[in-house]
């Protein structure tokens, strides 16, 4: 038994005010974070014939569909570009988009999906969104392998900017969590948000230049010339715009995607949303078990 002491090792109080994010405690629970992430990955494709191969098949199929539908059928591919180069460009965007999409979906439902845990045992509740986000890293890694193969096949070289690529990957996860933690908590009470969030994600995909440049949307949206600059600004504030264009810029030197001041503003807004979201999460996490 440890030495008796007059200072309690733990105090339980009514919730109230703003609680700091307890990094020390999160660190103590790092094994749980790791095990929860593993659980997510290992259990995902169990008992399917292709098993983990699905993680690699899904992005390839997505890229093929986008290349086919937008690039070839709808003519988003510029005349001078060959199909394989266009596919590399699309896959480049798809890799980071799928990372975001999966992390976002999983984070949005992380409380409801872990109800059985949350109502039966204490753990730092932030583990739930973190494990949901980290579980998507596997998809990212395999998507990157496919990207390298595609680049070799199409003869596309990388650039020195590739050192910035991890920053855009990180930003994709931050973007997923920044909105995801809000929805995770609010959807416990308002299940409507679960469905709304999936529609939101789908809408965002079409607003993000994964398979076509943003100009295509603006050109065809019938926006008048006078308000067009405003729309362009709004477009570029979408953090996934920054991620997709920036990732492409860093990996294959796509000049249009170079970060701008607007990118910096977008990152700042995303970070602010994330930090506010994390504090909100901490504010309500001690009683979320009552209503989940």
């Amino acid at each position, binding site marked *: 038994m*440890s030495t*008796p002491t007059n200072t*309690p090792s733990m105090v*339980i*109080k*009514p919730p109230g005010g703003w609680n700091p994010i307890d990094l020390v405690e999160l660190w103590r629970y790092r*094994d749980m974070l790791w095990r929860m992430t593993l659980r997510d990955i290992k259990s995902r494709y169990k008992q399917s014939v292709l098993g983990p191969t699905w993680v690699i098949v899904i992005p390839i199929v997505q890229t093929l569909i986008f290349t086919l539908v937008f690039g070839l059928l709808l003519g988003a591919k510029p005349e001078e570009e060959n199909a394989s180069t266009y596919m590399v460009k699309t896959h480049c965007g798809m890799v980071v988009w799928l990372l975001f999409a999966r992390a976002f979906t999983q984070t949005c439902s992380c409380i409801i999906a872990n109800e*059985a*845990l949350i109502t039966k045992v204490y753990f730092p509740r932030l583990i739930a969104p973190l494990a949901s986000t980290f579980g998507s890293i596997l998809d990212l890694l395999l998507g990157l392998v496919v990207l390298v193969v595609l680049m070799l096949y199409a003869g596309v070289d990388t650039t020195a900017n590739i050192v910035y690529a991890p920053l855009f990957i990180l930003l994709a996860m931050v973007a997923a969590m920044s909105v995801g933690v809000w929805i995770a908590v609010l959807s416990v009470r308002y299940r409507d948000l679960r469905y709304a969030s999936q529609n939101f994600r789908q809408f965002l995909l079409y607003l993000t230049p994964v398979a076509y440049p943003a100009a295509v949307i603006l050109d065809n949206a019938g926006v008048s010339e006078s308000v067009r600059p405003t729309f362009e600004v709004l477009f570029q504030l979408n953090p996934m715009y920054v991620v997709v264009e920036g990732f492409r810029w860093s990996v294959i030197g796509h000049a249009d995607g170079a970060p701008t001041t607007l990118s910096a503003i977008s990152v700042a807004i995303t970070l602010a949303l994330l930090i506010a979201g994390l504090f909100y999460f901490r504010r309500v996490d001690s009683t979320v078990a009552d209503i989940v």
Partner: protein
Amino acid sequence: MSNDIAIRVEGVGKKFTVGELATIGDLGRLITAPLRAIGLGSAPTQDTADNGGSIRDHHVKRHDYWALKDISFEVRRGEVLGIIGRNGAGKSTLLKILSRITAPTTGRIEMFGRVASLLEVGTGFHPELTGRENIYLNGAILGMNKTEVNTKFDAIVDFAGVQEFVDTPIKRYSSGMRVRLGFAVAAHLEPEILIVDEVLAVGDVAFQRKCLGKMQEVAESGRTVLFVSHNMGAVQQLCSRGIFLRNSMVHTDAAVSDAVAAYLGSIEQSASEDIIDRGERAGAGDIRIAAVSVRVDEDAPHGHLMTGQPALFTFDLEGKDLSADIVFTVYDHRGQPICRFTSFECGVGDATARRYTCAIDEWPLVPGRYRINAAVFAGGESQDHLEGAAVFDVEPGTVGGRSIGHDANYGCVAVAHNWLTPSDANP
């Protein structure tokens, strides 16, 4: 000296809001919730100003309910405390607060030492993962680190008796194996303060004994144990002190035998109240038990049976027209379960039945005072659960031609039997 204290609970209360959680009227609040939460919100609306601004209170269909009120007690190091009370008395809420699953509304709790709480066995088990993977996962969820699990891994596998299946997905395990594995992980936590729910109510008898043994071991090693249970036998065997919760408050805090006596007394007392008025029940509530009677035959008075004579248990139901089934368990005066009766697979659960009668030809229990807990099941879920649905006395009678008197010291079941004389046995 406060050095001896392991847990100090001061004025703890917990308020719940009952009623509809999400309504159309909430949509506006929902949209502004993020803004308000980060402090950018407008001044409180009429709505929130009326009730102090709590998100939960503003709708008229909701009302507050205090599941716990002003609970205070201290637990000394090495003490084994049992918490008892009926459904709805606040036991589970107290347990959840002590386990930090949810926060109290008022009050303060101080813990001195490493705490482990066990509300169920195998929390977080994933059916697709192997036994080995689940041991590490469950260990991590309960707060063990990898090194700790590594050193205890073999002991856990041994205790659970799943050596051959350790690399098999646990969805292939029997439910008994899963429970054993879950308890085995928890049993190797080695906390200074252990908080346990009635997890012992699961598993086969041999394993239950093993679990009780392990708990006894924990208790005897000088660690602090808080045990929440319906099983009065287990509570009296394990605990030195008992707290009886009633109507969200501490009713009795005393030696375990006194707390159990107070609990059993309250059940008998409320058994005389009109059943339909009683609040302490669990279940979905579409169907409720409205009345229960226990008698020798149709014309006999309620509350008396006789050993060896017929017995009729009658249950009147109220509520929706659903086909229902009844389960009831007979307990002795010490709170030990004796036997159970169910209407499942008897074909009586047709939609129109409002009165269920269970008939026993020869009542087999010896004289004494007994009570029953009764439950109603319909539509695949528990509808009603009533503790102390009836209390009755069994009078002396005869079984198999032998008279059975007042002596429960040698067991409480009377069985008709014959002896073979030596000449009969060896013809």
